[in-house]
């Protein structure tokens, strides 16, 4: 459960992204992106690589020009303002630590260029380093630190100036899985504590779900859906969002819908109060369905693999070549190659128009 947006500390500012467009020559990389980010909010831009999320972030930072559109931070229009006057701090995927400077010099760099007095700077560097538990490594060089420590240096450098906005470009993707989980929790805690408006780019939907107040899902430079993690998970706007969110992702069966009956190969399945759709895709989540004896569910399939993940069993089935995954409790046992049926409550069924991707029935 995501914590409510923290009380703003006064430095946090809202961000208004208005009709962002980005062209690289003839290539339209970002198409009419508009998002209003509240002060203190944690917004995640989520999407596969090449969807324009990093471009959008770099446009907010001022590292890429805004081809058309406007950007407001607080009430100030910063569309044409240089990065250093936007009062933002950014954490890069590569951390972008200065290799020839010590940890202390790295963390203190924003204050140094702001010509902060030495005593004040030292106190601030110590405070920031302590906050990310780096107090003992201040005189080391980035090359002597582990990946997780480098990540912390980058974070400390970002928080030391108390900017109005944090931008993070896949900050956790270079860490190993366990460390990533820890840092995720720390990031979330820190953001809540500081209450600084944060825009976070990732392609990892778990990060998006766990960190965000709201998630913006993007594809091919177009915003697909903007909503709370719960909304985008349980109420996906289209086929792409439904398939992107969730691990393992939603199961899809393609067919046609006519007179409130869904037909796909040998399957016929009544779906009440659903409009006719010439090419329809039926969707259901792995955790919303169960395996039953063959012939008793709404469809039958062959068991392909059985994966025990510890807390549950993932059963992958094949129906005419279409893979279907069912999450079963950890006690569940079945042999690969067996025939099985899948059953579910029809209220968990989503229907999408295959051609347009639009959802025609809510689960």
């Amino acid at each position, binding site marked *: 459960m995501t914590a409510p947006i923290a009380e703003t500390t006064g430095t946090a500012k809202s961000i208004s992204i208005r009709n962002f467009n980005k062209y690289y020559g003839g290539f339209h990389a970002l198409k009419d992106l508009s998002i209003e980010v509240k002060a203190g909010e944690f917004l995640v831009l989520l999407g596969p690589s090449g969807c324009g999320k990093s471009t959008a972030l770099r446009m907010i930072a001022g590292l890429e020009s805004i081809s058309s559109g406007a950007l407001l931070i607080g009430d100030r229009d910063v569309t044409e303002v240089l990065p250093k006057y936007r009062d933002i701090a950014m954490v890069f995927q590569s951390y*972008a630590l200065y290799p020839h400077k010590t940890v202390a010099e790295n963390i203190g760099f924003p204050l140094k*260029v702001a010509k902060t007095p030495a005593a004040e700077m030292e106190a601030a560097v110590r405070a920031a380093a302590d906050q990310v538990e780096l107090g003992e490594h201040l005189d080391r060089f980035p090359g002597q630190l582990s990946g997780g420590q*480098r990540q912390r240096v980058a974070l400390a450098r970002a928080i030391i100036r108390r900017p109005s906005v944090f931008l993070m470009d896949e900050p956790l993707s270079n860490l190993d899985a366990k460390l990533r989980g820890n840092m995720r929790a720390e990031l979330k805690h820190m953001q809540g504590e500081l209450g600084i408006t944060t825009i976070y780019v990732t392609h990892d939907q778990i990060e998006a779900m766990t960190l965000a107040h709201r998630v913006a899902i993007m594809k091919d430079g177009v915003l697909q859906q903007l909503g709370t993690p719960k909304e985008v998970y349980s109420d996906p706007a289209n086929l792409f969002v439904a398939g992107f969110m969730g691990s393992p992702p939603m199961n899809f069966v393609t067919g046609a819908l006519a007179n409130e009956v869904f037909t796909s190969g040998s399957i016929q399945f009544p779906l009440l109060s659903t409009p006719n759709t010439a090419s329809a895709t039926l969707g259901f989540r792995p955790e919303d369905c169960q395996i039953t004896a063959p012939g008793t569910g709404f469809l039958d399939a062959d068991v392909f693999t059985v994966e025990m993940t510890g807390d549950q069993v993932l059963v992958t089935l094949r129906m005419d070549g279409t893979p279907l995954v069912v999450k079963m409790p950890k006690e569940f046992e079945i042999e690969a190659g067996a025939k099985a049926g899948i059953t579910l409550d029809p209220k968990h069924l989503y229907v999408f128009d295959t051609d347009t991707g639009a959802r025609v029935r809510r689960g």
Partner: protein
Amino acid sequence: MTPKRSIFEAPRIGQMSMATKIVLYSLLLIWSAFVLFPIYWLIITSFKDAADVNQGPFFIPFVDYQPTLHAWKELFVNDYEDTLRAYFNSIVISLSATALSVLIGSMAAYALSRVSYAPNLITILYFIALLALTVLAVTIYQVDWRLASAVAIAMFFFLARAVGNLYQFQLHNGDILFWIISQRILAPIVVVVPIYIMFQSVGLLDTHIAIIITYAVVNMPIVVWLMYDFFNSIPRDLEESAQLDGATMIGTFREIVLPLSRTGLAATTLLVMILSWNEYLLALFLSTSKAQTMPILVAAMNAGERGILWWTMSVAIIVMIIPVVVLAIFLQKYISKGLLVGAVKG
């Protein structure tokens, strides 16, 4: 215990067998002798007189022959004016030319590595054509140069837009870089006559300025080429991060780019310095007496009426080598230091 090396790693000296070590060290010894013997020969020759050289070969001083300071005296006492002038000229010219070409060349390299240029090919050709026409008008038809340039500039801006929009073929950074490097592919001998005439017409023959400018231009492509690669290896993230942290462009360059490119700058400086220090052909054309450099002085010694003066030539060569060796020792710690370790993820 030494860790077992992977099959992809070259063996370390300590891990080799005795036989391998003996072969390795003998090869190294032979190579060292091969490299060092000419220098040894140079040194002992500088302490010989004409008889020792002509009746030789004598290898060991005090045993084979009696060393004498004769040649050193000749160069630094009798002819000290010529020697010191050439030495001073060489130092001034190579230092200035190196500073100039490294400064301008690395700025060009930095710009090429960080900014995307897309000049229109037609506009460039058009610019060159106008320039040629202006020169023709001024030199052949005696048009006032101010009038000619004003007309040319006006025509350039007027037609650049019109013509530029017709043909959209653009050059890119790679083309510009290749064009710069191609200037070095051309052998200097090809352009030595035009360069000579050019400096003759502005009255700069046999001056430091002429040689400094020529060396700086000739070495610039090497600087651009080396530094372009070097700047490219510095992650852009670092500069972007510094900008977001509030640094100015100059601040970013001074605080981030310059310290990180020290290694590359040191290597480039050393290379360009050596090239200018040893350059012979261009100096031969551009200097007659006042601006003569060391290579010219040394070469002149084998053309005297007394035959080849091996002994004085050896002295001149020794003093000529010293600054380069000192420079190399001074700069090698920068060159061998890999400062970029840990810049990005590790």
